[in-house]
């Protein structure tokens, strides 16, 4: 923090007494101050006064501070724009609407499929001579739901 003086003076020492008490002096300077204070009654007196002052000022305790601020801080940070971001909310709303649309479409397809299956079962019951209930008699291809094939079922008007 400081350079060593050419000629050590009381002024030089006194300017550094506070830093010494605060433990902020380089070890070299500290040794010089210690030696000087031991041999200089005036500087020693000041040193003693500063130590007494440190004890005196420690009597100011401040106010009792035992309280938990987290609930109040949490409440406030939840009100921060980023935590209630309108664009974030609108994104979520769009996503939900999209999901609802998908679910409605799937429900419609399920309804069509259910009716097709019912019709097939009815035909099967009426024509026990069909080779396999799971293949088209004309093509031999597996049965596909009309909803996924893009065709409309001839059985449903």
């Amino acid at each position: 923090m400081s350079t060593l003086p050419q000629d050590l003076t009381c002024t030089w020492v006194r300017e550094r007494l506070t830093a010494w008490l605060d433990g902020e002096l380089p070890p070299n300077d500290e040794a010089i101050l210690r030696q000087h204070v031991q041999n200089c009654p005036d500087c020693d007196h000041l040193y003693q006064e500063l130590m007494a002052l440190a004890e005196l000022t420690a009597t100011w305790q401040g106010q009792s501070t035992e309280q938990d601020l987290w609930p109040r801080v949490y409440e406030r940070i939840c009100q921060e724009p980023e935590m209630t971001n309108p664009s974030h909310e609108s994104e979520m709303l769009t996503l939900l609407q999209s999901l609802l649309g998908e679910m409605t479409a799937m429900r419609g397809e399920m309804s069509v499929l259910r009716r097709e299956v019912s019709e097939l079962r009815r035909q099967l019951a009426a024509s026990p001579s069909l080779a396999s209930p799971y293949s088209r008699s004309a093509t031999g291809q597996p049965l596909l739901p009309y909803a996924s094939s893009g065709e409309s079922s001839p059985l449903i008007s």
Partner: protein
Amino acid sequence: MGEGLQQHEVEDDALMRRAANRDTVAFGQIVRRYQSPLLRAASRFLVNDTDMAADAVQETFLRLWQAAPTYSPQGNLRAYLYRILYNLCRDARRRERTTDRLEDFPPFTSASPTPEIALDRRLLSDAVRCAVEELPEGQRAVFLLNQYEGLSYRAIAAILDCPEGTVASRKHLALEALRHRLQPWMTGEDNK
């Protein structure tokens, strides 16, 4: 990162990284870790006004939360918090200047019993508080941060944005002023 940092500083950095990702649990740990020392410091900065102190500390944490995404972890969260708090308290003090002065308190006189017997800690505490209150703002800040919060000259220099040498000289001047102001309490002599 990490070299030269103490364990609690490393933990602070980790918590701040989580807070940057809006992790309120991590941020809650930071609040509970620092609320007591900050409240104590704020009560001194604001001359024992506990309501204002609590408001200032809350605001400090709110600003930390807002700054978390851009906060650069380097083990100095404590100093960072004190810096926010000090600036808030300084502004609050400017708005509401306190009027207590040392002269408002009964002076210690030679007619009193010896200091060892007569020393009323509350009166003494008030006298210290007022003497500190009357220091110039720069000296007062350095004195409070060093004497009561135990911050090093380097940390205070970072908080107040000034050279370490300035911190040292302000502390020296503050002690000189307090020594004169509180002389009667130290020696039992009359105030004047």
